[in-house]
């Protein structure tokens, strides 16, 4: 018996275990396998193979089951009660990449929009692909303002890792030389359309605010390395959420998992819900993870020398909270009581739209999966940009386009048909993405009384935005309208559609990095203060949110942490 057990244990033992296969799990898998570690990736959802598991990628408009691919209301209400709050995410084209809410319950003390997908690749398939670096304006802000805790790193620590990640994933963009939005390693930028070019010229002249093309993780000039992975140039279909059969935007499935697989060191196990980290008190480290096989209901254990939690900010925190032991009665590595706290997102749903006079004889060709970007211009450290009503800042995404055949035109008959067969007026829209501060009482807690269908405890959310964010939103609406008006656009409407935390789908902060184990969960290398062979590199690690899309920073942190783990392992420290 002892022999059999030893053999079973050996078969389930790896150099490294990565929990999750999304944007950070995939990156961890690539880095660890390339450095020679036999790595097990555990993914709670089903397998999604690049290309072959994108069933709607080539669906033409006339091949849909439902009008415009919109699901019937009864199906939305039955299965996508939360996911449909985005208003755009779940359609006939994408529903297989989002969870069914009726099967994945949680409680909302205050409304929280938890938008997610359980499958190999996670949200790297459905992400917005906007890719920006944090700057020292972000890394220094907490310390300077006495907010939360200080980041244990600065821009210089992460810069080479940003370079490395950008080179691998491929980012199209324009260098701007702005200190608040550092330039990166860019492939050629996508083009602005006529109206966007005119908008840029007038806003830069009249308001001195920089307008740039969105920096997006799409290949516009693939490198040899990217071509060798089977990835190709962006075809400008703008059907990204369905999965890209050209591998032109970055996803785990198209890139990191392919690279990891080619090393021969990767094992992916889908349908594997990690329920706990196993603490070994003798070794004073994590020996592995406990897994519930989603299909068989079997419980099993996997062992690894180093463990990367990359399950997403909320799910990684859930695993920590659900992993209690004599050593960690309050959750794994949670003596600081910071696990599950300081939840951040980017607040959005506020901005302005306007109608653009003229340009009737101009149009565009191709569907650009990207827009323009307006880097942060508030509170940059100088007097001119300083605001009295809020700290931190926001950026805008947006752009111009002509209205299509679905615009309202009165009447019936040939004249209306002819009008709709031509493009409509140009419209311009700007939507803000604002920084949310870390508040200790913005938190999730584990609800052991309410179990899901696997008998596992669920989360309860108590997260809200506060006065700083509310004041910022007013400025986000007003400054958007100011720019559209400066550009000479008409019928400008500024507005706030309302926002519940989570809707930015940028959950962060539940196991923050910091310098002091008493007030943070992770150190400067994303290592748990209290358990050195566990690294957390998803959104949980974020000490502050910045106002830029976070995925690039997660990946840079992941690559940096993986290198640290491999060196520490070599030195025998893990």
């Amino acid at each position: 018996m002892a022999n059999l057990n030893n053999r079973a244990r050996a078969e389930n033992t790896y150099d490294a275990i990565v929990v999750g296969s999304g944007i950070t799990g995939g990156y961890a898998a690539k880095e660890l396998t390339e450095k020679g570690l036999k790595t097990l990736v555990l993914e709670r959802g089903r397998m999604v193979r690049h290309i072959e598991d994108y069933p709607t990628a080539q669906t033409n408009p006339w091949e849909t089951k439902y009008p415009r691919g919109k699901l019937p209301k009864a199906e939305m209400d039955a299965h996508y009660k939360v996911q449909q709050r985005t208003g755009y995410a779940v359609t006939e084209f994408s529903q297989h990449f989002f969870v069914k809410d009726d099967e994945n319950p949680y409680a909302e003390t205050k409304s929280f929009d938890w938008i997610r997908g359980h499958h190999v690749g996670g949200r790297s398939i459905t992400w917005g692909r906007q890719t920006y670096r944090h700057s020292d304006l972000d890394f220094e802000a907490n310390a300077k303002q006495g907010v939360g805790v200080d980041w244990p790193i600065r821009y210089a620590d992460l810069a080479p890792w940003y370079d490395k990640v950008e080179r691998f994933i491929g980012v199209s963009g324009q260098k701007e030389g702005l200190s608040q939005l550092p330039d990166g390693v860019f492939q050629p930028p996508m083009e602005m359309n006529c109206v966007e070019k005119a908008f840029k010229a007038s806003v830069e002249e009249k308001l001195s605010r920089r307008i740039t093309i969105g920096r997006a993780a799409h290949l516009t000039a693939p490198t040899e390395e990217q071509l060798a992975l089977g990835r190709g140039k962006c075809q400008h279909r703008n059907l990204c959420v369905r999965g890209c059969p050209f591998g032109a935007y970055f996803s785990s499935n198209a890139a990191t998992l392919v690279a990891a697989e080619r090393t021969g060191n990767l094992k992916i196990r889908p349908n594997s819900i990690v329920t706990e980290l196993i603490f070994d008190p003798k070794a004073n480290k994590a020996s592995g993870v406990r897994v519930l096989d989603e299909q068989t209901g079997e419980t099993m254990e996997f062992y690894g020398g180093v463990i990367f939690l990359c399950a997403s900010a909320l799910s990684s925190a859930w695993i920590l909270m659900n992993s209690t032991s004599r050593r960690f009665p309050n959750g794994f590595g949670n003596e600081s009581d910071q696990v599950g706290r300081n939840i951040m997102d980017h607040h959005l749903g506020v901005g302005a739209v306007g109608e653009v006079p003229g340009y009737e004889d101009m149009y565009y060709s191709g569907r650009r999966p990207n827009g323009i970007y307006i880097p942060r211009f508030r509170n940059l450290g100088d007097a001119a940009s300083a605001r009295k009503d809020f700290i931190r800042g926001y950026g805008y995404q947006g752009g111009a386009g002509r209205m299509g055949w679905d615009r309202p035109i009165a009447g019936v008959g040939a004249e209306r048909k002819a009008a709709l067969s031509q493009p409509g007026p140009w419209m311009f829209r700007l939507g803000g993405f604002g920084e949310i501060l870390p508040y200790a009482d913005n938190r999730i807690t584990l609800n052991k009384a309410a179990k899901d269908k696997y008998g596992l405890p669920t989360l309860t959310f108590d997260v809200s935005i506060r006065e700083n964010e509310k004041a910022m939103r007013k400025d986000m609406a007003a400054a958007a309208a100011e720019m559209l008006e400066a550009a000479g656009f008409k019928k400008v409407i500024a507005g706030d559609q309302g926002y519940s935390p989570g809707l930015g789908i940028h959950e962060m902060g539940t196991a923050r990095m910091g310098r002091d184990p008493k007030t943070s969960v992770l150190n400067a290398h994303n290592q748990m203060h209290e358990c050195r062979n566990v690294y957390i590199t998803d959104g949980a690690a974020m000490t502050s949110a910045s106002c830029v899309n976070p995925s690039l920073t997660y990946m840079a942190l992941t690559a940096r942490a993986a290198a640290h783990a491999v060196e520490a392992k070599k030195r025998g420290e893990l």
Partner: protein
Amino acid sequence: MLNRREAALSFGALWTALVVPAGALAQTTPTLAWTPKALSADQARTLDAVAETIIPATSTPGARAAGVPQFVDRAIGTWCTPADAGALKAGLDQIDADAKAASGASFAALAQAQQQALLARYDGEGKAFWRQLKELVTTGYFTSEPGATIALRYDPVPGDYRGCVPLKEIGRGWATS
């Protein structure tokens, strides 16, 4: 492989040959070329004529040739809420009843000008069923293969993006954004 431009042109010729000339007068109640799944035979006949009145055949195919009535029938059967489906069916009944009250003939048997006049009245009144019917017909048409590829332009794989192109080079609106 045909290039896309040639393919679109040959489609155009095919569809133009198939459609009824735009000015033709409908006088007797036409037989329906398709079998409804959600609607009654009378409702389907009315829908068939309503759809063609909203989007008539011109130099490009109309709603009937694009299969829009079948699209709307399917939407009523599988996509609309029960309340909306009921309102749409009742709305089609009402259109037919109004036609009979005003002209003594079913809507489908009215002359084109009468059909247009009756629907223009609904359009002005802004009834909920009418807004949804018009939207479904419009969506059905412009997302159909003839609507997207002949009335509009459709390019499944554009390749490049060009931001500033004279409209006359494209000619029509893009089917998808």
